[in-house]
């Protein structure tokens, strides 16, 4: 669980972007500090995907876009049995995909 998902905070206007860009989408500044993307938020939208591009142990994958309380949005795996639009969740880190180079860690969302 040592892995963290990170984004960038613009050192000029303070906008947090995830994922990172080479240029701040808000003010075009080019210097940033790294920030950890985590916390609580609400489910903006979700889907159960059956058309998978790689083998998962489950028959479908529950994906969601979550809006964190600081306004940053993230895409990840929703680990909730009864998903609902607007439901409160918090981020956690877990295996999101097995690839040739090994297990990939990423954002998961659990109900709070």
């Amino acid at each position: 669980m040592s892995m963290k998902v990170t984004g960038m905070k613009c050192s000029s206007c303070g906008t947090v972007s995830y994922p990172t860009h080479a240029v701040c989408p808000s003010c075009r500044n080019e210097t940033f500090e790294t920030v950890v993307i985590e916390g609580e938020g609400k489910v903006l939208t979700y889907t159960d995907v059956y058309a998978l591009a790689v083998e998962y142990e489950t028959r479908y994958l529950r994906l969601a876009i979550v809006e964190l309380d600081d306004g940053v949005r993230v895409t990840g795996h929703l680990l909730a049995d009864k998903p609902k639009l607007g439901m409160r969740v918090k981020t956690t880190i877990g295996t999101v995909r097995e690839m040739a180079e090994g297990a990939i860690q990423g954002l998961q969302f659990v109900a709070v």
Partner: protein
Amino acid sequence: MKSVYIAGAGMTRFGRSEWPLMQLASVASLAALKHANLGGVPVDGVVVANMGAARINRQTALGSALVDQLALYPAAAESVENGPASGASAVKVGFQAIASGMADVVLVTGVERMRVVNGMEGTDFVASLSHPIAEYIYGVTLPSLAGLFARLFMEKHGVERKHLAMVAIKNHANAAKNPYAHIQQTITMEGILTLPEAVVNNPPIAEPLHMFDCCPVSDGAASLVLVSQEVAAKLKGPKVRLAGMGQATDTHTVHERKDPTDLKSVRIAAEQAFRRAGLKPEDVDVAELHDAFTILEIAESEASGFFPRGEGHKALERGDTQLGGRLPINPSGGLKAKGHPVGATGVAQLVELTWQLRGECGERQVKDAKIAYACNFGGFGNNVVASVLQREA
């Protein structure tokens, strides 16, 4: 800018093909060249649109390969890879060559041969256009982005699954009148939604989207012959002008868009295309929209300017977008039923519209169509090309 005309249009039937990649491309190209009936006028340039051949067919530099197949040397040649918008992007390259005066005749061919790989690999190759760190590693596929988009859009605008089904039913019915379409099977609301067996007939793909909300995986090619006004004046066929094109981009990830249901790139590309053509959405007689997923036909019909936001599904309900309606959308069957060989799609939309404006569409002909519009939707809306075509007397 000089005026650009579409002198000829041709395609292969979409579906599963045994033909190698370059045979698909050649057959469509020769059909378009024959349709254009250029006489002795030489082809100056060839542009080939394709997304996956480097990966799934192990072939690159398709522009040069097509020149060789067609013995068009020493014509200039290039290949365009721009995700699912590759087709209309390639048309834009040809348009620019003629509009700038660098060429008089450009052959634009889109081709894709996807069914050589299994469904999972095919899905993964298209998914590689998503953001590598923030989307792809999560198992995000194009259907999943469409599912995320659909749930939000439907909630916001009161769109129901029956509306999505109406798009599918309409486009299947249109495709049944199109000999080039991949799927030639009509479907019913009962069979895909309301009867108990609909659950089996129409399983979920990316909730709330089901199988009949998604386009098939197809092989195929489509081709256009673009010419300058000088060349068009010498040809016998009806004059179809490529009156305006527009293109716009948006954030790579879907989640970074302030309102993910607002297809801003479609809006901007459409506004550009109409402005450059000197025309308005209300002038359009027939449109081909990028319905890789049924929800997209509804969303693009609004973002392109045909209906107010949140009212695309109401226009659909009224029958406005059917053949015979106020603005028929996807008379070809759309990606939904005509099929979606990715790199060929943007070209194929313009092939259908060229035929429509020439009055050559038989049973699916939109009567007296003079002005046409196409939206080729790349990425999941991060790169969109819009085109406006006009029939001249």
